[in-house]
Every structure is written in structure tokens, then in C-alpha cells.
């Protein structure tokens, strides 16, 4: 017997048994068999190795060892003889025949080991029971003494298998139905979608004419007036405009679909009148771009605006029809087509086998997403008056970058983070009224403001309205509200007064009470009780405090309990945050959902309707999963991978967390760590309940209860004594 081979055999067996996997590594097993085939000595050696591994106190090791045993048992006579001669021990270690030697943890693997062992014994008995008497004896022992019902296992497994098959079939049938339905739907919807896509394309084309459609000459005058506050008008150089436009063709897209000449005229006029009509002029961002490129920008300007990618289209009378169509299309895509296509993709990946359809659906999805993206890039500014209607229900794509850049609004009192739907219109208008004159430049305000409401202030949405800090902030701002209120327009003050009078009217009438009677007076005797010394003939308590102050009583004189008299308003809104299973969160919390944070208005898909919310959520998510792309959820990605066989990199981003934590520096890192403290609900509770401070708290509370009893019965002498 070759020593090296022997060593190798030992190594192989150890590796195989400590792999911790439910199935054996076939290559290594093959090698073991190859070595064993050479000589009986190796078989003896391997038998001893296996028995050693079987005796290990770890179910995973035993399971693997059992699998090796099974492999070798069917091959070598010597191995069979050896094993059968020691079948008692084998059964003890695998089938748990000795009640005093339970199978080692982990539990589920041990259960698996036991069933597998029983199956194996059954198989051996069927094949070799005739030849090896002890095997037959062992089998009968299990069957009759240990009452292991082999037939039942058989029957049960068969029944299980049948059930599984049936389930599989049913699932398949359901999927099939779904797929055919989806195909039909798809067939019907594809023309619509394609039409929709082309329409979108056309709209975009209309809204943003291709740079090639312009001749440079006509473009030049469009470079409009610089910002009046910062820029002397004389600095404007027209030739530069053309160069800029040449360099960045996308800048030309910034054009509004207004009549070009009209605009030109207007802007030229504005150049001269520079300081007037600020708001009108701000509509045209390419002026900013121009100014920036000429290097004549003032420092009051924020540089964060990236003009090269920002395209802004504003709705006017001229392009109204197109923009309306665009908006309708956008809504159609985001509410109808895209969800439908997404559901198809999901369905096809789940059902499998429909590669062509899957690809087609994915293409469609890509097209739709692209269209949405383009639409977003356009930054269409819808008209205000319509927008109020639009904003409440549907998807509004106001560019929030603009807001971020320019909305340096002083904080207002009455901070309200949760904005009910019926107030959203007001909210939308708020920044314009609040902004100071210097910042007004940036704000596009095309329409006159209807009733500015300074109280509605969108501020720091990250702050939790349910926590104390937010309340404090509100209070602070209330105190400080005087100054901003004075600056922010005349209509505020009367409003406040009005509110005050309203408050008065609303103030409840409180019944007269003892506290009001003694209002503002000091009461030396309040709550003092005089205890008489005992009248008993013999027994006299040793130290009698004549006057006892009862805190409760004295408090009663000074304070008043007011029961909450408000009406309970049932909550009608739901959280509606999208859940992993595709539904929307049904929780009805007043302000904050414990799972999804502050409740914000959401559309039918669970997407926040308010762009600010969307941005915040986005930021949070980004923080959460740094490099993980959010455009597809991991499960879907994995499914697509499984379906198409292409590696999209899901394992790289998502598989990391699981493997990393497993025992470092351990000898066999693949095995389940038995010493690992179990993180069960029970253990967590135990940690909570039995920690020191909690125990102390409980004992204190108990003591207090005890003491109270003494106080209660203080007039009884046996309690009064101690």
C-alpha cells in the first residue's frame, strides 16, 4: 500500500466530509473510488476513516460520511463485510437507534441524515439482504423493534412525490394559461405600445427640433438677455452663441417651442429693459448657459445647473397640443404600458421556456423606459393652471433640480411635512411666494400667484414628524416666525389675526374648579393632613408625625386634568408603498408607517407623486444599496439570469452578504457553526427581558407596588409599624 495514496485518501475523505454540502463532490468521490479500486487495503483504510468521521459530533459530517458509505457499499464486497460486521454502531450513529446517543446538531441536517440513512438501509436490504444476514437482522430490528416503518416511508415518499408532481403540474397549467393570456394581451397591446412610442418620439421631435433643423443664423438671436440682477447687458456677445451651440448641440434643444422670432424679439427687448420682467426672462435657461460660457456670470448664481444635459421645455399656447399629447402619452406609458410589460417579463421569466417572448417583452420594456427617460430629460414645464389638476392625481415631472438650486426659502412656521392631497396644489405654489426678491430670479413664475400660504412649508422631509425633535423645531419656528412673516408679504398678518380670532372662537369652555378658585395664590396648607396620635389605651406608635403632606392632594389643588375632547378621525389614507410581493402597503398610520417611513401621497404603482419625496426616497435607497443598480429588483434579475443564462452580475452584488459571515479562521469553514449563538426570537427576547437594567426596573416596580400596599393599609397597626 502506497503511503502517499493513503495520505491522499485520508485527505479526500476529510475534505468530502467537511464540505458541509448536502451533496458529495463527484470528482473527489471518483478519485476516492479510483484509489479504493486498486487494493483492499485502501478499502479497509477508508472504512476506518469513514467510521471515524461518522462518530464526529456534527450532523453534516455524518451525512457526508453516510453518502460516501453508500457509494462504497454498492461497490466493494470487503467494505460491505466490514460495515455489516459493525452495523450496530453504524445504526447508532446514523439512525439514532440508541436513545442515549441522539444525533448531533444541527437539527434539520440530523433529520435529513436519519431519513437518508433509513432509505439507504432499505436500499441495501433490497439489494444485499439475502447475502448478508446481519444486514437483514438490522433491517428487521429497525422495522420491528424501532418501529421504523419502511413501507410507510416508501408510501409517503410516493405520496409526496405525487403531490409534488401535481403541484408542479398545476403550477405549470396556471403559468401556461397566464402565458397564453399574456401573449394575447401582448399581441393586442404591441401595436398600441409601438404607436405610443412613435408618438412620443414624434412629440419629442416636435418639441426639440434636431440641431440640424436649425441654421445657425436663426439661432444667434435667441441667445437672450443675461440675468438682470447680476449682469450688465452690454457684455452680451452674440457670436459666441453660435459657437456654444456648435459645441453642444443639445443646447439647441433647450429651445422652447415658442415661435422663435417672437421670442427673439421679446428677449431683445428685455436686453434693453434688463431689470424689468425678471420672471419672464428666467424662463429661458439657455441664456444662463450662454452667460456661463461667456464667463460673465455673477457669483449670485448657482453653478450646479448642468446645462448640457438639462433640457427644459415650457408649455405655451403654441405647443400646448403637443405637450398635452406628450403628457397623456407619458401617463399612458407609466401607468398602463410599463406595468403591463413588466408583468409580462416577470411572467415569462417565471414560466420559462419563452425566450423569444421574453426578449420581445424586454425590448418593449427597454423602449418604454427609454421613452420615459427622454420625457424626463425634456423637463417639460406644464402650465400652472392645468398643473394643479394634473399634479394631484397623475405623474408630474417637474424638475426638482431647479427647485434644489434656487429654493433657498426661509423656514416657515407651521411646518407641515405631511401634505394631504387636497393641499398639494397650494403646496406647489408655496415656494414662489416665500422666496425673497434676490432669489426670485431663479424661480420660473409664469402665472400670478393665487393666495400664497406661508404656513405650508416643505422642509427637511427626512425629519421625522413623529419624533420630538420635529415638534421642537415647529415650536422654535413658531417663536421665530415673526421676522420671516414680516418679510414674506402683506397678506400674512391679517391671516394670523384672523386665525387668532378663530382660535378664540374654537377655545373650549372649561368648568370652574378648585384650581381656578385658588388661581395664583400660595396655599400653605394644601395637601397637608393631620394625623391624630393613637387613641389606644396601651399601644402608642413611637414617633407620630402629626402633619403629613399628601403630594397627590396638593397637586390636585393646583392642577387640572383635562380629558381629550377632540374627535377621533379615522384615517382614510394608506401607506401604499410598494412591497416586494408587488402589492402596496395597506397600513393606515396617521403620519408614519413603521416600515416605509413618512406616509407620502403615492400613485397607483406606489411611486411617490411628489418629486421631492421621490428624490428623498431615491437618496435613501442609494444610500442603502450603494452600488446596486436600482433599475431592476434583484429577484427579477436573478430570474432573468436563470431564464436567459446570461450573467447580469446579480450574484456579485447580492450574494456577498451571506457567505462573508461564515466562520473565519475556523478549520472547516464550510460546516455550519454549532457554537454560533442562535439568533432566534426566543433568544432575542431573552436578551431583552433578562438584561440587567430591565431586571432592575422590574424589581423596582415590584417594590413600589409593595410599598403602595403598605401605604394603603397604613392605618392598620401591623402595617404602620414598618
Amino acid at each position, binding site marked *: 500500500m502506497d503511503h502517499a495514496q493513503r495520505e491522499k485518501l485520508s485527505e479526500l475523505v476529510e475534505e468530502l466530509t467537511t464540505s458541509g454540502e448536502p451533496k458529495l463532490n463527484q470528482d473527489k468521490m*471518483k478519485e476516492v*473510488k*479510483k484509489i479504493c*479500486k486498486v487494493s483492499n487495503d485502501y478499502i479497509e483504510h477508508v472504512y476506518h476513516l469513514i467510521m471515524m468521521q461518522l462518530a464526529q459530533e456534527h450532523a453534516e459530517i455524518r451525512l457526508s460520511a453516510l453518502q460516501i458509505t453508500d457509494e462504497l457499499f*454498492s*461497490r*466493494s*464486497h*470487503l467494505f*460491505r463485510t466490514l460495515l455489516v*460486521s*459493525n452495523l*450496530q454502531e453504524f*445504526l447508532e450513529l446514523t439512525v439514532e*437507534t440508541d436513545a442515549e446517543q441522539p444525533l448531533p446538531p444541527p437539527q434539520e441536517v440530523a433529520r435529513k441524515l436519519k431519513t437518508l440513512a433509513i432509505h439507504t438501509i432499505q436500499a441495501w436490504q433490497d*439489494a*444485499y439482504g*439475502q*447475502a*448478508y*444476514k*446481519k444486514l437483514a*437482522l*438490522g433491517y*428487521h*430490528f429497525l422495522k*420491528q*423493534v424501532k418501529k421504523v416503518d419502511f413501507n410507510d416511508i416508501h408510501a409517503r415518499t410516493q405520496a409526496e412525490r405525487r403531490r409534488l408532481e401535481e403541484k408542479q403540474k398545476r403550477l405549470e397549467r396556471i403559468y401556461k394559461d397566464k402565458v397564453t393570456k399574456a401573449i394575447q394581451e401582448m399581441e393586442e397591446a404591441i401595436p398600441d405600445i409601438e404607436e405610443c412610442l412613435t408618438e412620443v418620439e414624434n412629440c419629442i421631435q416636435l418639441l426639440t427640433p434636431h440641431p440640424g433643423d436649425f441654421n445657425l443664423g436663426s439661432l444667434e438671436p435667441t441667445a437672450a438677455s443675461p440675468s438682470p440682477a447680476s449682469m450688465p447687458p452690454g457684455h452680451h456677445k452674440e457670436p459666441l452663441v453660435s459657437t456654444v451651440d456648435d459645441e453642444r448641440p443639445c443646447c439647441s434643444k433647450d429651445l422652447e417651442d415658442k415661435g422663435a422670432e417672437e421670442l427673439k424679439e421679446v428677449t431683445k427687448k428685455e436686453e434693453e429693459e434688463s431689470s424689468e420682467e425678471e420672471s419672464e426672462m428666467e424662463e429661458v435657461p439657455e441664456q444662463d448657459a450662454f452667460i456661463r460660457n461667456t464667463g460673465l456670470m455673477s457669483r449670485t448664481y448657482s453653478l450646479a445647473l448642468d446645462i448640457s444635459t438639462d433640457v427644459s421645455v415650457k408649455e405655451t399656447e403654441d405647443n400646448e397640443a403637443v405637450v398635452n399629447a406628450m403628457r397623456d402619452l407619458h401617463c399612458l406609458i407609466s401607468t398602463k404600458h410599463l406595468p403591463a410589460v413588466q408583468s409580462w417579463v416577470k411572467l415569462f421569466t417565471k414560466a420559462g421556456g419563452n425566450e423569444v417572448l421574453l426578449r420581445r417583452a424586454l425590448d418593449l420594456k427597454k423602449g418604454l423606459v427609454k421613452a420615459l427617460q427622454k420625457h424626463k430629460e425634456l423637463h417639460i414645464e406644464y402650465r400652472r393652471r392645468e398643473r394643479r389638476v394634473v399634479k394631484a392625481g397623475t405623474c408630474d415631472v417637474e424638475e426638482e433640480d431647479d427647485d434644489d438650486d434656487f429654493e433657498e426659502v426661509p423656514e416657515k412656521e407651521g411646518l407641515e411635512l405631511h401634505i394631504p392631497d387636497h393641499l398639494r396644489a397650494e403646496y406647489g405654489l408655496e415656494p414662489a411666494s416665500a422666496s425673497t426678491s434676490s432669489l426670485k430670479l431663479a424661480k420660473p413664475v409664469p402665472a400670478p400667484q393665487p393666495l400664497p400660504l406661508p404656513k405650508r412649508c416643505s422642509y427637511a422631509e427626512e425629519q421625522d414628524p413623529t419624533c420630538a425633535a420635529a415638534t421642537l423645531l415647529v415650536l422654535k419656528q413658531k417663536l421665530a416666525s415673526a421676522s420671516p412673516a414680516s418679510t414674506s408679504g402683506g397678506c400674512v398678518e391679517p391671516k394670523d389675526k384672523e386665525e387668532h380670532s378663530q382660535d378664540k372662537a374654537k377655545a373650549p369652555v372649561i368648568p370652574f374648579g378648585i384650581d381656578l378658585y385658588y388661581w395664583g395664590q400660595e396655599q400653605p396648607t394644601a395637601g397637608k393632613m393631620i394625623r391624630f396620635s393613637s387613641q389606644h389605651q396601651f399601644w402608642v406608635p413611637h414617633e407620630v408625625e402629626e402633619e403629613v403632606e399628601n403630594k397627590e392632594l396638593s397637586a390636585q389643588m393646583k392642577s387640572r386634568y383635562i380629558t381629550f375632547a377632540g374627535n377621533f378621525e379615522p384615517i382614510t389614507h394608506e401607506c401604499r408603498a410598494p412591497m416586494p410581493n408587488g402589492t402596496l402597503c395597506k397600513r393606515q398610520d396617521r403620519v408614519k408607517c413603521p416600515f416605509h417611513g413618512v406616509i407620502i401621497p403615492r400613485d397607483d404603482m406606489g411611486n411617490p407623486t411628489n418629486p421631492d419625496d421621490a428624490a428623498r426616497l431615491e437618496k435613501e435607497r442609494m444610500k442603502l444599496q450603494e452600488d446596486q443598480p436600482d433599475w431592476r429588483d434583484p429577484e427579477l434579475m436573478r430570474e432573468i439570469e436563470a431564464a436567459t443564462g446570461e450573467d447580469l452580475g446579480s450574484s456579485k452584488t447580492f450574494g456577498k452578504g451571506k457567505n462573508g459571515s461564515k466562520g473565519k479562521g475556523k478549520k472547516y469553514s464550510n460546516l455550519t457553526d454549532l457554537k454560533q449563538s442562535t439568533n432566534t426570537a426566543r433568544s432575542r427576547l431573552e436578551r431583552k427581558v433578562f438584561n440587567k437594567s430591565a431586571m432592575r426596573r422590574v424589581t423596582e416596580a415590584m417594590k413600589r407596588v409593595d410599598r403602595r400596599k403598605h401605604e394603603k393599609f397604613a392605618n392598620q397597626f401591623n402595617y404602620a409599624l414598618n
Partner: protein
Amino acid sequence: MLGFLSARQTGLDDPLRLRRAESTRRVLSFELNSDREVDRIHGNGINTLDIEVIDGRYMLSGGADGVIVIYDLENSSRKPQYTCKALCTVGRSSRYVHRFSVETVQWYPRDTGMFVSSSFDKTMKVWDTETLKPAEVFQFQGNVYCHHMSPIARKHSLIAVGTEDPKVQLCDLKSGGRSHILQGHRGEILSVRWSPRHEHILATASADSRVRLWDVRKASGSLFTLDQHNREKSKASSEAVNTAHNGRVNGLRFTPDGLHLLSTGTDDRMRLWNSATGANTLVNYGKVENDSRKGLQVAVSQGCSAEFAFVPCGSSVAVYALHTGERVTTLRGHYNNVNCCVFHPDYQELYSGGKDCNILAWVPSPRCPDIEDEERGAAAQEGAGQPAANRAFEDAWSSDEG
């Protein structure tokens, strides 16, 4: 073997020598063989076995569920394979069945028409084999652990009964009454044995760790008590004086010639005593695992050149050379504790019964066929039903693993 045969032919040797040599060889080659099986009747552990001595054909077994079964051991089929059939059973359906575990069964030494069984239901029953009805029932105060009839007695027909009560009771089959009470023990009587040499000599083993020898004609008390230290240390430790073991003594067995007495105790020791003097022969058997709370049935071979003792030892049967104390081999086949074993002196076979409901037959492994036999047998095997078994013994390495 051939040497023995030629010596026998030429008349040089005593006929006994050949017989003994062959017996010894057979005993040493005991194995669990598919040739011999015993019907599985018992649904519970087997406590006791007994083979009748008249023609060595029938075996009694008593189970923990009160069932008594009679097996036919004789193989008249002229084939090596044989399954010992259960001839008749006192099953749970019988109205005479013992209600609790049967602890001891024994054939009447002179006739197979009668056997005696004792049980934890506090009775001892004398059965008529033909009708399977008890001819006589003895009631006792406590559980009956054991009973024994003298195999050689001609002048008396007494059954010694060991019960929970420290008094050994002697029941007379002739009168159906209890003739004697032997007082002396302080614990339960776990084993009683009549000497095969002197019909009035009785050995009893008790939970008080003593073994006493009695002459039943002598009413005053026991003849002597076996002392593990041969009375040398008696002064040093008054506690251990006159004790045979340091724990319960639960197995007793005279050698077939009656010269020696074997005892086992829960101190995991086995001792061999000179039955005439009561001296400890100080044979060292090593550790004999023994944690039974009841009686244990030990077997001793008969007719071998060096006698062997078969001792239940956990889930196996240990085979010891009786006089040297050497553990010859261990017969492993039971899957639970072995309670009893019995040696068949004529065929050199051992039957063992255990808690796993099995009665296992340990038979001598067949001789390897000689060269001539093999050639002859090979031709015969072609058509015979052997290959099925043989295929199981072959290796089955698949070629792709090479």
C-alpha cells in the same frame, strides 16, 4: 483433522479426543450464518431459552411479553439452510399465558411432556406440553426471578425458586406444595442452580452480592458462602466479608461436570469458583460488561477439550476460555442487550436471545471445500440457485471510475 482421523483409525487415540478436538474447532468457528435462522415469533425481548437434554431437539423461549414458544431445532431437510420452526406457542391469546414477562423457562429434565415457567406475574406454572395448559400453578409473594430443577435428581423433584423475597423456596412437584424455605440471603434471589454432580446441592445468587451453597437436606442453613477474597481480607473490610461480587450477582452456572461454578455480577466481573470448597479460582476474565437488573443466563460449552463460557455482554455474546479467562471472541449480531444464551451440546450450536426480539443461532462456519470438492461443486453450482448470493459478494466497480 486428518491426523486425528488416522490416529483414531489406528486406535491410537481415545475416541473422546477426536470428538473434543472437533467440538472445540466448531465452537471456535461460531458465526452468524444465513444457514440457520429462528422463526421470529416474539414481539418483545427474549428473556430466557432452554434446550431439552433428552434428544436436544426442542427449545423453549420465554419473552418479555409473557409469550412462551417451543422451537424445533432439528434439521431434517438435509440441506444446510434451515429455519427453526416454532412448533407451538403460548401466545397472548391463550387464557393461561403469563400476564407479565417470563423470566425463566425450563424443560422437565426427564421428559419433554412437561416444562416449567416462572414470571413477573408472581406465578410459576408447570405446563403440559401436549395441551399447553398449566398442570400446576404456584403463587408467590413477589416477582419470580428464577427457578431451577435439578437435572440429575432421582431422589427428589424439587424446584428451587428465587423471588423478590430473600428466602429461597423449594417447591415439590410430587406434592404440588412448598416443602422448604432456605433462609440466609438478604436481597432478592436473582439466580438459583442445582449442582449437576450432587443432587442435593443448590447454589443461589442474590442481590446482596452473596452466593450461597446449600445442601437441601440440611435445614439449619447454607453450607458456605462464596468469598471473593478467599477469607484473606475479611478482617480488613467487614463490609465485604463473604461477598462473591461487589454488586448484584445475577448469573450462576455450574460447569457441566459440576466441579466449578461461574458467577457474574453487576460489578462487571465474572468469577469461577471451586464448587466443592467454595474457593475463588481467581481466573481473570477482565471486564465483563453487565448492567442487567434481572437474572442473566450464562452458557458453558460441553464436550470441548477446553471449555468455553458464553456470556451476554451488552449487545454481544462474549466467548471466554473458562479456565484461562481469555476472551476468545465476541459474537456481535444483536442490536440490543442480550439476555440469555444456551449451548447445544450435541451440535455445538449457540442460541442467544436479546431485547431486540431476535433469537440468533450461532453455528460453526462450514468448512472450506477442499480442492476436489471445489471442482465438483463448481459444476454443480452452475445450475444451482447459488449465484444470486454470490453476486452480492462480488465487487462492483464501474469501469468509468478506473
